């Protein structure tokens, strides 16, 4: 709630290196390196990531080459083109999405939390 101002990497921007932080990030441009967030990452249609990603939630609509670790969910939208491995509690691949790699879903429910069916 504290930091909800948008963080956007525009379509004409290239970042080489490491991005980390704890706020939502939207990437329309190009990132090479590594992205580590305690929040949600959105890669828009124009976005290109050549990076390993470690986030809570990943919404992928663009191009991603690298390993994706999402502690909550990774969603590949129809426009997504992803090459790499995905490890997430929930993985969604929508019709039309292009994916190559392995998927590992870890179903780790804390004690006392009810599994919400399937």
């Amino acid at each position, binding site marked *: 709630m504290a*930091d909800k*101002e*948008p*963080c*956007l*990497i*525009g*379509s*004409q*921007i*290239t*970042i*080489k*290196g*490491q*991005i*980390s*932080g*704890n*706020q939502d*990030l939207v990437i329309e*441009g190009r990132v090479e*390196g590594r992205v580590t967030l305690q929040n949600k990452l959105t890669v828009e249609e124009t976005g290109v990531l050549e990076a390993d990603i470690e986030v809570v939630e990943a919404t992928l609509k663009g191009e991603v080459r690298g390993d994706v670790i999402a502690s909550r969910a990774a969603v590949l939208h129809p426009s997504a083109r992803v090459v790499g491995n995905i490890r997430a509690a929930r993985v969604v691949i929508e019709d039309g999405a292009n994916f190559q790699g392995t998927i590992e879903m870890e179903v780790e429910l804390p004690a006392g939390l009810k599994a919400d069916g399937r």
Partner: protein
Amino acid sequence: MMAKQEKEKTMANTVIGSSIVIDGEISGEESLTVLGTVKGKISVGQGLIVESGATVEANIESQSLSISGRVTGNVVARERVEVRADGKMVGDIKAPRIVIADGASFKGNVDMDV
């Protein structure tokens, strides 16, 4: 109040939020606003705004640069560099037009002979 209005007006396309840290190189052809931390190198084709509270430890190349936060590094701007009243800068500046506002802190070399 004035600063707030200006801040909204100058919100650029790309925004590095206040709790984001980038370690590496940022380049591109659009304007950039930094509220968080950037270490490394920044090279943008348009304006760069380092907002109050932001920390930039990088060599910077841009069209124009406005500093309200803290910048450490050398700056080359094709048009204009402004160190605002709440800005703190350590490094060399090379630009045809340079403004250092009353209250700003600056240490480094100034070269307007571009």
